[in-house]
């Protein structure tokens, strides 16, 4: 047998991870890992939320306190997402198009809310905006405090989503618009912004999904006052503490739906857009 034939066969076999042999082993290992870590526990939440029957599920989910917590969570998350859409785009713009001393440090700082543990984030905000504030601003235990903490933890999402798109944007499109008589505001509104919208939407979806589930940064600053500053994640925690795991699971299912709907919607939009775009 010639060496050429041997090496080509070996090459063809080992270059591709096909659905046989060790390809199947890899698939198996990954499936086990994902199933044990993610699928099994989440399935337990969904299934066991109906441990007491569908009536009990409905009762848990529609209790006054649960509804209040869910409604507040939804409202404050939407508000924070909307603010992020503006602030995040603005910050991305300044970081990409502007020059000033210390810009690199500021750019690195954007990831701080991601790197910092949420409990520390809460403590940090409490120092400046709580009872011991040196500036006298005390918004602890208010709904505004919840909003503030959520703005902190969701800061990086829109910024980091928009930045690369802004950097890749064809400057000549803006010059063409300018040569046709458009003012800088018009250029931004009609040329730049439409091309940023997909990135902004993507960042907002991620920010929203993060906001609805946030827990650690809210524990200290919000006071967790039922019917006022209590968010869904804290409500779930309290239910668990009061030995009502089924009720906790029921509300968890609703919370999961919030973020899943948004994320699936985002993927669907991206899929549609990539087919529409072409070149």
């Amino acid at each position, binding site marked *: 047998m010639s060496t050429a034939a041997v090496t080509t066969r070996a090459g063809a076999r080992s270059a591709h991870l096909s659905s046989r042999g060790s390809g199947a082993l890899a698939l198996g290992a990954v499936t086990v890992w994902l199933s044990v870590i993610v699928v099994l526990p989440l399935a337990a939440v969904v299934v066991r939320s109906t441990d007491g029957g569908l009536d009990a599920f409905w009762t848990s989910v529609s209790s006054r306190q649960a509804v209040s917590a869910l409604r507040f969570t939804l409202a404050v998350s939407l508000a924070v997402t909307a603010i992020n859409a503006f602030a995040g785009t603005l910050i991305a713009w300044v970081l990409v198009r502007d020059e000033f001393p210390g810009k690199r440090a500021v750019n690195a700082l954007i990831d701080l809310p991601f790197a910092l543990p949420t409990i520390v984030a809460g403590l940090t905000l409490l120092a400046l905006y709580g009872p011991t504030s040196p500036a006298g601003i005390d918004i602890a235990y208010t709904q505004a405090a919840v909003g503030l903490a959520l703005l902190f933890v969701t800061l990086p999402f829109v910024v980091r989503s928009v930045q690369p798109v802004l950097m890749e944007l064809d400057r000549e*499109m803006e010059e063409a*618009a300018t040569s*046709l008589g458009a003012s800088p505001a018009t250029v931004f509104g009609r040329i730049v912004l439409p*091309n940023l919208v997909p990135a902004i939407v993507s960042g907002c979806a991620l920010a929203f999904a993060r906001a609805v589930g946030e827990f650690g940064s809210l524990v200290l600053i919000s006071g967790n006052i039922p019917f006022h500053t209590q968010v869904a994640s804290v409500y779930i925690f309290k239910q668990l503490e009061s030995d009502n795991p089924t009720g906790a699971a029921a509300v968890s299912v609703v919370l999961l739906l919030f973020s899943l709907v948004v994320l699936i919607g985002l993927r669907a939009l991206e899929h549609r857009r990539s087919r529409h775009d*072409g070149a």
Partner: protein
Amino acid sequence: MIYLDAVDKRFGDHRALQSVSLEVPEGSLTALLGPSGSGKSTLLRVIAGLEAPDGGRVIIDGEDATPVPAQRRGIGFVFQHYAAFKHMTVRENVAFGLRIRRRRKAQIDAKVDELLDIVALSGYHKRYPSQLSGGQRQRMALARALAIEPRVLLLDEPFGALDAKVRADLRAWLRRLHDEVRVTTVLVTHDQEEAMEVADRIAVINEGRLEQVGAPRDLYERPANGFVMSFLGPVARLGEELVRPHDLRVTAEPRAGALEAMAERVVHLGFEVRLELALADGAPLAVQLTRDEASALEIAPGDIVWVGHTAARDPIAA
């Protein structure tokens, strides 16, 4: 018309334009011709107002346009890579300049239809740029620029990103368009063939300086210096002089003004014969002869011949 008065432009340490003065006649199609990095695109962008000169003035139709920003100069600009608004349809692209001037819808639609007809894109008005070929995108870009009825049309290597065949077609098409529309046009290119074919006047630029301005034929036959001569056509170096290869004459006998050379190879290329010579200093020189000329001379490798030129005027010093 456009008048550039001693325009200077610097990028850091690099002097992109050095005191360039140029007049672009009304209604002409002038080519800015030069190699990469010569400053021709920079000059075009200075005319457009996309770059501000560090010295000198830009005068358009008698007014000093130097302090006027790009959006108010009334110029149309076409980019090498089209700069199409990729999120808008062809129709919306072409209509853009009119929409931001708040013209009435009926007016805009009529104008867009007219322009799309001129650039032969009428059936494509609902398509997106990504669905068009390069040549079609560039025609759209031209329509877009013409929509605002600019007093000056500026084209920055408009065909540079296209295939050779498309380029040739669009070149001819641009010339016909210009003859019809008659807008003062400035075209930047590094392709001398393009400049010669399309332009009424050519301005040759090298290293930020204007080398020569004139009609294509004048530049070819009466180049001001060696750079212009070698940029605009083939050159052969005969000792200390540059001549056009087709002006070379080979004789078996010595002639006044001719140089001695030895024939190294005689290559028969069908109906032409290439004679590869070596001059006295060893420099190679290739001369094209017709079959008849070659057989009349009866040259074989190793023979000594004399090579001179028959140019009507003095050749350029190399």
